[in-house]
């Protein structure tokens, strides 16, 4: 019964978090195939430790795991490049051209950020975490979070200065 209850809690958690986790992972890696892979791995590790996760702490915990999995993936980027091409690559074609171009420009700019800067930026401005919360997820000091997010915003501003996408202020 206890195990069933644990599974039910976790299923409810996944149902509530699924889309936001996918979006977070997609912003991190820019690829839906990899994003789902990251979410799958993060949720698996999260469920493995479900009994130890504090009530209410699961959303932050799973994002911390997801961020670490993403950073590890980046270290093994060369491994990933060898995999077969992703199955979502053609889905952009039925979207309005401008919207797709706009999106790809932002993703291309994000791709040019160092992995940790990118993760810091997304945690701060997409996940809306505070500096302290971001530092806890990234395993660094608040000073590092401030400098990393400042550098990331500045870099994006430069990269998007000549594109159709408004540069961040």
């Amino acid at each position, binding site marked *: 019964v206890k195990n069933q209850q644990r*599974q039910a809690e976790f299923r409810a958690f996944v149902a509530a978090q699924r889309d936001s986790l996918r979006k977070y992972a997609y912003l991190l890696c820019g690829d839906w195939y990899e994003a789902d892979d990251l979410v799958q791995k993060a*949720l698996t590790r999260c469920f493995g430790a479900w009994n130890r996760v504090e009530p209410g702490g699961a959303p932050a915990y799973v994002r911390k795991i997801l961020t670490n999995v993403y950073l590890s993936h980046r*270290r093994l980027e*060369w491994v990933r490049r060898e995999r077969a091409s992703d199955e979502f690559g053609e889905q952009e074609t039925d979207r309005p051209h401008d919207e797709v171009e706009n999106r790809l420009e932002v993703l291309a700019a994000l791709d040019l950020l160092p992995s940790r800067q990118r993760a810091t930026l997304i945690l701060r401005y997409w996940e809306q975490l505070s500096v302290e919360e971001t530092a806890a997820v990234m395993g660094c000091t608040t000073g590092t979070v401030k400098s990393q997010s400042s550098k990331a915003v500045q870099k994006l501003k430069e990269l998007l200065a000549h594109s159709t996408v408004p540069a961040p202020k």
Partner: protein
Amino acid sequence: MNGNHPTDMLARAIPDELPPDRIDVERIIGDGDRARRRHRAALAGASLAGVAVLAAATAFAVVQNGAPPEEATPYPAAAFEFDPAMAGYPEEVPPGETGEGDRFAGDAGERFGPLLVEAGVWSDLPEDVGEDCGDGSCGSADAEFRVVGQQLPGNYGQVYLRSYAGALFLAQAAQTEPSPFTLDLMLPGGWTAEPGPDAIGVFPRHLISDKASYTDQDPLLASEELDDGRTLLTADHGCAYDAVVVYPNGTALRASWNTGCERLHYPLELAALTDALLAMPQYDLDTADLAPVEELLEVSPAWPYTEEWPEAAAADAAASTEAAALAVEERFSGAELAEGAAEQTVFTGELTAARRHYAAAGTLPVEGGPSAGLDFSLRYSLPGGWVAGCWTDRSTPGPYLVSPTLDDCAETEVDGRTVVTQTTVLEDGHAYAVTVFDPDGWAARIETSVPAGAELDLEALVDLVAALPAPVYDPDAVPAD
């Protein structure tokens, strides 16, 4: 919010409709449960290992019942609160040569011994691997496999990587040849399995080079993610192979085999090397000192270490110190400075990169000082391989040029140039060291001990070092990114 806010900009990267997902909740629950059971089994194993008598009794009971531990894995994962690739160890003592290092040498002898025999490196296998390979070395006297604890600098010594490094020590006749076989057990921290340039300035460091290294041919790279959680990477250089297996607990083994790029020939198939490598166990190593690198220091690229450079740079060193002697003489009439010599310093654990200096010794006539003058040393440091300033909160210099002292390492600015002064109180006076960092990238440093009563203070020394001319060197030859 407005359209230019980072949040809105990120929102534009997300489509209105998300594509169908591949997230399989049933599989997550199944895999998560298995991971949890493995974790519990590993914990149980760890606690039993500490109580040998109980462990033996339990193992006996398990065999009696015919029920092996459920879902036990030889490769339990480790969880880090940070990305271990962007982490490292302090510069201290490398891992010891006992304990895991001994076990590693024994395992290597057992798994790779047959290959060494087949290739003709060893005439025969050790009679008793457990006995003969138990002290960090293994094999015959003419080709002994030895394991030593090692540390390797990451980002010019900002952090260190730790490993147990195993290599063959060939007999006298073959000592000029590099070891045809090396096997390193890497502790987690500061490295990546992704192939890339293996250089002191690249962090995290790459365990496998993606460039030609044994010959002028680029290697053929391959990777495989194994079902048991390990990842195997290989680089086939034709006449030599590099192979790395990364374990779920963040450790890695790196093997290199040179079949004959040089004079000696030790034939081997790559598959035989990877088979032996994959037969090695995962090691549970001490990572208590591992800490994340919060901000990588920007270090200018170091010079390649070459034995010839000091001689080649002798004239520049002499010209530099000759010009410096004139500047010293202007402030201290009667001062002397001997002709300087070029010297290079290497980094702990890294012999391929160096910093370059010109050094000379001299005397300063000082009122109240020794009649023969006050001894001092001058050292110019050319740009490359260091950071200006002093790592004040550490006991080691790391990438900084100036070694910190526990009592004093003060940083000031004089005429737009950074100046580091260090003062040590002696029984009968003071020891001073002044380093001036020029915006062009070079530095000059003078050290001296001033006895009580001698009329030379720190301020006068700062003025002297700040007045020294630039050393003679070719700015175009300075290593660049």
